[in-house]
């Protein structure tokens, strides 16, 4: 493990802690559950854009795991995998678009939305009777908080990344 790897490892650890801290600050609470946080996804995007997609995926998966430890919501084994490690991990996909951060964040946000969407469908397949239409409900519910969260993340990530580059200009090789 060289110096660069160690730095990446430690930074991912801190980014995961930041996600947990920031998701405790709720800016807006939606009536049907789900809430919009104070840019709790920004640390994942920061890591992804700084260190690339693989580091972003790692940071996301771990943030999902920590999120589960803090506030477990377990109704189906597949749902847990999709809602926590997979959903958060996919945010890290943004790191594969280091040159165009906005597109990266949108793709990452969309990927996370898809994971929650599928998990909603899985839940309904397991617990709701046949004939109900889970797809629309799941899309509306998950879209209602993901859309604003992603918009906020774009704005905040760009601002934070710009500020951080000035203060901490050392770019990883």
């Amino acid at each position, binding site marked *: *493990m060289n*110096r660069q*790897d*160690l*730095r990446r*490892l*430690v*930074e*991912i*650890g*801190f980014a*995961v*802690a*930041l996600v*947990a*801290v*920031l998701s*405790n*600050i709720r*800016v*807006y609470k939606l009536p049907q*559950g789900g809430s*919009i946080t*104070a*840019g709790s996804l*920004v*640390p994942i995007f*920061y890591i992804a854009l700084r260190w690339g997609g693989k580091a972003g995926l*790692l940071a996301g*998966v*771990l943030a999902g*795991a*920590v999120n589960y*430890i*803090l*506030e*477990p*919501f*377990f*109704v*189906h*084994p597949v749902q847990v995998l999709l809602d926590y490690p997979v959903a958060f991990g996919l945010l890290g996909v943004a790191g594969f678009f280091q040159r165009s951060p906005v597109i990266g964040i949108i793709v990452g946000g969309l990927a996370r939305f898809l994971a929650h969407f599928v998990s909603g469908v899985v*839940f309904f397949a397991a*617990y*709701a*009777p*046949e*004939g*109900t239409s889970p797809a629309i409900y799941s899309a509306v519910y998950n879209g209602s908080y993901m859309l*604003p969260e992603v*918009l*906020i993340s774009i*704005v*905040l990530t760009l*601002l*934070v990344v710009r*500020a*951080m580059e000035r*203060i*901490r200009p050392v770019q990883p090789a």
Partner: protein
Amino acid sequence: MELTRYVSIGQYLPRDSVVHRLDPRTKIGVTTLLMVVIFVIADFTGYGLLAASLVGLFLLAQIPLGYAARGLRPILFLLLLTFVLNLFFSGLREGTPLVRLGPLVITSEALSRAAFISLRLVLLVVATSLFTYTTSPMALTDGMERLLRPFRRIGVPGHELAMMMSIALRFIPTLLEETERIMKAQMARGAEFQRGNLLRRARAMLPILVPLFVSAFRRADELALAMEARAYRGGEGRTRMKELAFAARDAVAWIVSVFATAVLLASRWLGLP
């Protein structure tokens, strides 16, 4: 805004019980088996037995049963929705109609199905909450690292994942305190967080985010330097102060749960009574 009261991380309830002392790998395994069992059982008798054993486990773990109920609070809405959907729209027209509300009919079949599905959800949540109540995040991380070790060959960085997780868990309380300090400092300068539309509130977070990021990643730099100075080289050949080891109680837990699962599977698919 007080944030530090969240400092106790997660749902872990420290007690001195056999269940707490079980190896985390055992607890992960047994919880997985429990989940299999919950989805395999197809009648109320089975769920009755399972509920009774879960109550037994809670008592053994010295976790008050009120905590089992508390774990259900976040899913209350889903539970209700599941029950109502199954009650009215399951398409089970057989059985005696019990109540008629306009076009909606509740049959005895539908009622028993709604109760069964709701019970499945409740048992699943209670079983997994027993795991989070009795396993500290650190023990969970250790267990994860060991369970991921065989996957090293296909490129899963088990040790690194566990190390990052430990760093995150260790610094969550520190960074929470830091956040609170920054928020108070900015409020003293006249910052407003709770007013305006969504975008305005989001932008108001910037004077918190930037100092928080700066301070967090400065700490990260220091920690990386400290680890390097102590010659940290990753998981290869690293020794630990506390090695995970299976004890007799782990053997008992494994034997009992594997045996119970096997009996259940056999009775389900081989048609044994």
